[in-house]
């Protein structure tokens, strides 16, 4: 079992390294400092991906094979925990970003904000998954009749115990809902914090401004790709468990059951696809305008 986990992690690490080498090859390097910065970002990303995928793999395989004896709540928190480890790696990478050195320092007088750095759609996806998770946890928490059960009724046409009520579970009531809400909030706030660190990291001055921004956007894209997936997977898991229990208590064709099932698949597939698709941040930028002349100022 342990050997199979190690082999699986090795394959993932090799694939990740291959993707990173390919990814770095297509990055134009306009200066020596750019190479160092790109390397720092690539190493951070490699360790981040390894920690995220490794944590998820160990958690899922360990629970499935029975090597990890975790309670239900702990199992539910595995994706969030993997996401937090991933964010901690990226935070460490940003905090160790090379600082400006030398007696003469320079900086561009150009403003930048997190909104300029973080890809809008990925950031929206992160907030959407977090919102969906919060909504489903609150709805299921209100629906639940116990901490982790829902009240079901034996059908009237049943031969034994017709019309009697019983508790069906496991159901994502507040027993699971509260820690998952906290886990989701930590993941969301942690991601925003790391995006802020990326915005605030020192700019590279011996490269074009567009190149520096492209590297920043690449880092932000990696963080968002990795951080949105645990939220989506957690949401999908909650919906899947709820769908199973509601289906057993009512009927598999119940509209709520179908809705949960569809949303679970959308969350799971959406989260994994967004995590897997890399972006193209190093696009040719339009040339910057010339410095203002006296004629420009006179108008």
């Amino acid at each position, binding site marked *: 079992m342990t050997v199979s986990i190690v082999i699986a992690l090795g394959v993932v690490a090799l694939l990740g390294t291959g993707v990173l080498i390919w990814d770095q090859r297509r990055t134009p390097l306009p200066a020596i400092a750019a190479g160092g910065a790109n390397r720092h970002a690539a190493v951070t990303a490699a360790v981040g991906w390894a920690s995220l995928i490794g944590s998820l793999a160990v958690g899922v395989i360990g629970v499935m094979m029975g090597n990890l004896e975790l309670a239900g709540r702990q199992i539910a928190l595995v994706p969030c925990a993997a996401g937090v480890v991933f964010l901690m790696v990226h935070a460490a990478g940003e905090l160790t970003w090379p*600082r400006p*050195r030398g*007696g003469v320092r*320079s900086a561009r007088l150009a*403003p930048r904000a997190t909104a300029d750095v973080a890809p809008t759609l990925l950031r929206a996806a992160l907030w959407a998954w977090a919102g969906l998770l919060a909504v489903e946890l609150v709805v299921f928490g209100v629906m639940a009749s116990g901490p982790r059960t829902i009240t079901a009724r034996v059908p009237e046409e049943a031969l034994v115990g017709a019309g009697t009520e019983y508790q069906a579970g496991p159901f994502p009531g507040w027993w699971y809902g509260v820690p998952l809400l906290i886990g989701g909030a930590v993941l969301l706030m942690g991601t925003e914090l790391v995006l802020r660190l990326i915005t605030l*990291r020192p700019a590279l*001055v011996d490269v074009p401004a567009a190149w520096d921004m492209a590297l920043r956007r690449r880092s932000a894209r990696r963080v968002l790709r990795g951080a949105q997936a645990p939220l989506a997977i957690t949401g999908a898991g909650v919906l899947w468990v709820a769908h199973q229990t509601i289906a057993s208590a009512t009927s598999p064709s119940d509209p709520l059951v179908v809705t949960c099932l569809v949303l679970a698949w959308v969350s799971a597939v959406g989260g994994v696809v967004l995590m897997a698709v890399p972006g193209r941040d190093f696009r040719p930028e339009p040339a910057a305008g010339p410095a*203002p002349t*006296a004629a420009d100022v006179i108008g």
Partner: protein
Amino acid sequence: MSQTLRIDLDSAIPHYEQIRAQVTAALATGALLPGDRLPTVRVLAADLGIATGTIARAYRELEAAGLLTTRRRHGTVIAEPSRARHRDIGIATLHLVEAARAENLTDQEVLDLVTGALLAHPRQTVTLSGPTSDAP
């Protein structure tokens, strides 16, 4: 806007003063225009690798001089010009720099020319007893 700020950490001139002078010069020459946004104190401090307090002080001085305004939703922006008399001098300076570039003069040669011109035409200070010169 791609104005670059440069500070010399070993210079005797305080860091905040170097920043203040360069922003003022950029405004005078039209490199910065009213409404242009400046980076936040934290961003500029991170890029230069110096304390946020230094940048904050430079911004405060510029704000006190009426050159910057800080708006809640827009951050720090260049203020509308209230000192129109400096506009002509800024344009004249740009003409000077364009002419110097056309003649392939170095930055130091241009500065030497300006320094020489300043020494040849010392500033007249108005006092109660009549105009006096700054020159020794």
